[in-house]
């Protein structure tokens, strides 16, 4: 992979592989889940080889997603701990929305929006997993009573809708903040990107760097 000399690593190969396994599962689950949720979207079942295949595959993909997301939690929880900067960032959300970054207080590696995506999914993915198990007809159809399954299917739907909305925000933010996608595909950002969007993180990196020997060489 060719990188500019001044590239800063934002996501390691392990981060990225883990993220994209999760992403693939999430997209497949969204397509199959929506197909089973709204009749107008049932045509999406064709992508899975028909309704029966879709119904059979959906829970297994869910298991992979749960396992994969656990990996993301382990890798990312620490950098998503909420701090005072997040409050300041949220208060300036109207400047964030119009790209007026000069009025946005500097934030560390993740901003409050990114943390909200992380913690929402950390809540929703297990909720989807466990409610999904209860309505997995093939293996757990007889494990719980029908009233319990009715609640489970409602919880599953609501959690799924919330997760899809969070996902829309997540995907759009990645497109909107240019070169964020590259951070998750090729793993790096430029110093300018870090300066503009995660200034405190850049300062941290800089101070870590000068603690290390030998110092970083610039051309």
């Amino acid at each position: 992979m060719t990188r500019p000399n001044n590239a800063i690593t934002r996501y390691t190969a392990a981060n990225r592989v883990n993220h994209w396994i999760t992403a693939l599962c999430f997209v497949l689950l969204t397509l199959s889940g929506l197909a089973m949720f709204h009749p107008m979207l049932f045509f999406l079942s064709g992508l899975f080889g028909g309704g029966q295949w879709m119904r059979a595959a959906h829970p297994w993909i869910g298991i992979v997603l749960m396992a994969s997301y656990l990996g993301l939690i382990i890798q990312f929880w620490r950098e998503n701990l909420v701090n005072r900067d997040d409050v300041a960032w949220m208060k300036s959300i109207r400047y964030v929305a119009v790209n007026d970054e000069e009025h946005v207080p500097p934030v560390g590696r993740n901003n409050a929006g990114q943390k909200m995506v992380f913690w929402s999914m950390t809540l929703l993915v297990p909720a989807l997993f466990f409610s999904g198990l209860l309505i997995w007809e093939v293996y757990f159809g007889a494990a719980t009573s029908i009233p319990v399954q009715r609640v489970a299917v409602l919880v599953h739907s609501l959690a799924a809708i919330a997760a899809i909305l969070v996902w829309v925000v997540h995907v759009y933010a990645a497109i909107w903040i240019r070169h964020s996608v590259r951070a998750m595909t090729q793993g790096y950002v430029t110093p300018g990107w870090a300066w503009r969007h995660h200034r405190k993180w850049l300062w941290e990196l800089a101070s870590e760097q000068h603690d290390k020997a030998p110092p970083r060489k610039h051309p």
Partner: protein
Amino acid sequence: MSDLQSQDYVRRSASTLTPPSVRSHEDEVAKLIDVSRCIGCKACQSACMEWNDLRPEVGHFEGSYENPADLGPSVWTLMKFAEHENEQGNLEWLIRKDGCMHCEDPGCLKACPAPGAIVQYANGIVDFISDKCIGCGYCVKGCPFNIPRISKQDHKSYKCTLCSDRVSVGLEPACVKACPTGAIMFGSKTDMKHQAAERIEDLKSRGFDQAGLYDPPEVGGTHVMYVLHHADKPSLYSGLPDKPRISPVVGAWKGFIKPLAVAGIALAAVGAFFHWITAGPNEVTEEDEAEGERVLREADAHEPEKSP
């Protein structure tokens, strides 16, 4: 009966458009089960197996006359036996033929996500078009009577068809034909209600003050009705629901949440698009790059003096 074309649908699962319904000039039918005349012989069960070519696995004696123990993918009707001690201290043997009630407002159909897997004909019969069934089990959650059963072999949902194949060619359901006491009757819903009224009058004259018709209005009425000697307490009859209704949980899920959620998701995507074309992408500028570089450069340069 999916191989015969039906053009008399009044409801079709997971469909947003009007189903083919031109041949809908039909009387609504009903099966009337007069519990007071039932002797529990299970001829109806046998006839159901015979006509529909169903052979459930031979089970074990469970200490009850019920056999098999429960409805199943190949048990579409089941005699249920309940012992009830009445106010006079006498034992009553309440025998009820259980099976699909063919609700006017079917919860299974409402919950079903597969287009056309559950249909209701103009005559009121609710039928599973198994070819289109995906085996998700949503019908089980939608049903207020706990009727549909999913097969472990083919992962399809099954229940009583009210012999829709027989009824469509002018025959009565197999169970009706087999019943030796005339406890099971079949005809237009209006006729069956008249029939029931006569029976109820008779039962009342014989001391069953609470005799009545079970045609629960909460599900819009049913196309399988019971004459009960204790119509005030349907649950005496092996748990026949006193007030059957589609669970409000299912109602919320398949009611307002469904369109609201899809609209919400679509709106979020559209909103994002309009943000893109108004606020636009957030690009890193030349100045940002220069500043970023400066921070890193200064960190390098300051190393010696910052070291303690």
